[in-house]
């Protein structure tokens, strides 16, 4: 084993993949802990993973679909909105939970060394599991509404990748900021609420004027949610929007990792 040299770290640090790999079991166990703990002493357990997007779907279908008559690109509104809620629920939960994650694991931060990135990342692991559970409902709805399967479904893994890095990028920034400024705990729920309205969850991108779409796509979830829906429901992809959102996701992720690694050096001192 190479000598380990401990000295003041300055500037930006690249990701240490070797070290992250060495700690992969910890990532697994922390994610597993979060899953176990989340549903301890709840009566219906993992059903909560389904209830959140499912109830949202019903409420949105009534108010935005049936009453406000928001267009849904010719699809039944419930399945239209649910296809958008799947990635949105993942995204909003990751940034909410990851934001608090480092502070909540204060005891670990001040008592033992490991790559701190593992803490917010483990949150994404848990949410991915919830995503899969919620996806089962989608499959049932697909059967009910007789939505045909298309080759576009093959894009899903790539879209999942962008969804995860976008959420994690923002989650990393928020978790590092929350260590110093607990204010973000209070700001976050409000921001998430607003963010929903600038994401095409309850409305299709097609109702946004063409000139405004590049601006909308700066919200990484705009392109990702839209593409997700296209992949699931077989409608055509809006490539310009998707590409801008994907680039923004990558930038957010790299920026998030760099910012987190810059601030993590002081976590133990200021948490």
């Amino acid at each position, binding site marked *: *084993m190479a*000598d*380990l*040299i*401990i*000295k*003041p*770290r300055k500037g930006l640090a690249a990701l240490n993949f070797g070290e992250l790999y060495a700690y992969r*079991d*910890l990532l*697994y*166990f*922390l994610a597993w*802990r979060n899953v*176990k*703990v989340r549903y*301890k*002493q709840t009566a219906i357990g993992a059903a909560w993973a389904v209830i959140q997007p499912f109830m949202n779907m019903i409420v949105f279908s009534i108010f935005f679909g049936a009453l406000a008559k928001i267009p849904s690109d010719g699809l039944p509104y419930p399945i239209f909105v649910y296809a958008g809620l799947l990635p949105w629920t993942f995204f909003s939960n990751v940034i909410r939970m990851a934001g608090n994650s480092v502070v909540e694991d204060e*005891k*670990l*931060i*001040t*008592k*033992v*060394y*490991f790559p701190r990135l593992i803490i917010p990342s483990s949150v994404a692991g848990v949410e991915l599991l919830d995503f899969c559970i919620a996806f089962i409902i989608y499959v049932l709805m697909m059967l009910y509404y007789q939505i045909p399967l298309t080759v576009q479904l093959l894009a899903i893994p790539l879209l999942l990748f962008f969804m995860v890095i976008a959420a994690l990028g923002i989650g990393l920034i928020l978790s590092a*900021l929350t260590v*110093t*400024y607990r204010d973000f705990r209070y700001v976050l729920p409000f921001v998430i609420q607003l963010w929903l309205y600038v994401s095409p969850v309850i409305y299709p991108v097609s109702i946004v004027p063409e000139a405004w779409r590049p601006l909308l796509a700066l919200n990484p979830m705009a392109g990702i949610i839209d593409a997700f829906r296209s992949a699931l429901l077989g409608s055509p992809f809006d490539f310009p929007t998707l590409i801008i959102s994907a680039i923004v996701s990558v930038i957010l992720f790299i920026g998030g990792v760099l910012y987190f690694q*810059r*601030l993590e*050096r*002081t976590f*133990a*001192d200021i948490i």
Partner: protein
Amino acid sequence: MSTTDPIIEVQHLSKKYSLGKKREMYHTFSGVLVHSARSLSQRLIGRGTSQTREDFWALSDVNFTVQRGEVLGIIGRNGAGKSTLLKILSRITDPTGGQIIMRGRVASLLEVGTGFHPELSGRENIYLSGAVLGMRREEIDQKFQEIVAFAEVEKFLETPIKRYSSGMYMRLAFSVAAHLDPEILLIDEVLAVGDIAFQKKCLGKMENVAQGGRTVIFVSHQLEFLAQLCKRCLLVDKGKIVQDGPSREVISQYVKLVRSTDTMDLRTRKDRQGEGRVRLTQTWVEDMGGNRSNRIISGQDMKIIATYEVQEYYNCTNLAVSFAVLTVHGVVVVDLGTGTITPDFTENVPRRGKIECIIPRVPFNSGEFVYNALLRSARSGNEVEDWVKNAGSFTVEPGDYYRTGHIAGTASLLCIDHTWNILSA
């Protein structure tokens, strides 16, 4: 890399903490807003303003080396820098200057039960804590039976550890840690756990570890324990290594140092909480004749004293004080506070003052005690002004508490008055 190189080399290591300065502009809400906005904008970009902060060097120019297989003890008073040193060695926090070269896999044990989650079962926590401490899953699988047997918790493996007794919890936690298999093990004051039988078992395990050629660094206040386990000790004081040598010599130097400094200066303490409008400045323990000494004899009278000052901008009309006395293991023995048997100080609170708490006929039996000092001011809703944990310490020696002419037995923490009867039943 040759095997004759020292396994740890610490070179010119230093660590600086920035202390938040007094908050002059916090009178008004708008002042708070202006200040927050300014500091937020400066700190979001990662730059603290140097003028508004004070620096405190927790460690300065520390140098030492540790050879492979050596068992090293580190001693020093509270706040001397021992824990900071251990935190840097275990990579929890970065040094400000200097460097350390480590030539082996490191594991650190800074607390008992790192990573434990109360809702999870014993089995689950073994895996979780093992992973947190740096074990691979296969490694835990392999050692699982051994860990369970060592902790003696076989029957409770599926029980959430929130239902464990504190003894069981400690045993399980220590057992996981004791099965770590690094080349370098860093241990902070964690052995002060559990029942005596289990402590002995742990000590045995520790000795095995040390004899197994592993390099171990212990930070502890338990001098006997260090003397027994380590050949060599470092004495740290005010962020510097003041002595490095054979354990017995270093320990006796430490005892002298502790006795020579009976007054604790609290102004430089950074680990404090509260508004800070009233600040503790010094604390010490004295006898009724006014002699400062932190050696107290059970059954005699003592005073715990703290001095404070009120910030210029603050009109302090009310002060509540408390001293919580704890064992060095962190058990609160008694919390002495104004407001329980006497009212808080509400009249003539001096700007700079000295608070005395008189304890007649000291009921502590023998051992080391520390106390936390807490100041509150009730003007705006009983706010904590200043709270310093481990503000001071004193040693109690056994004495004639019961006024029998004999020294009371030493195997307990406290003496209390009591009477006995025998009745036919």
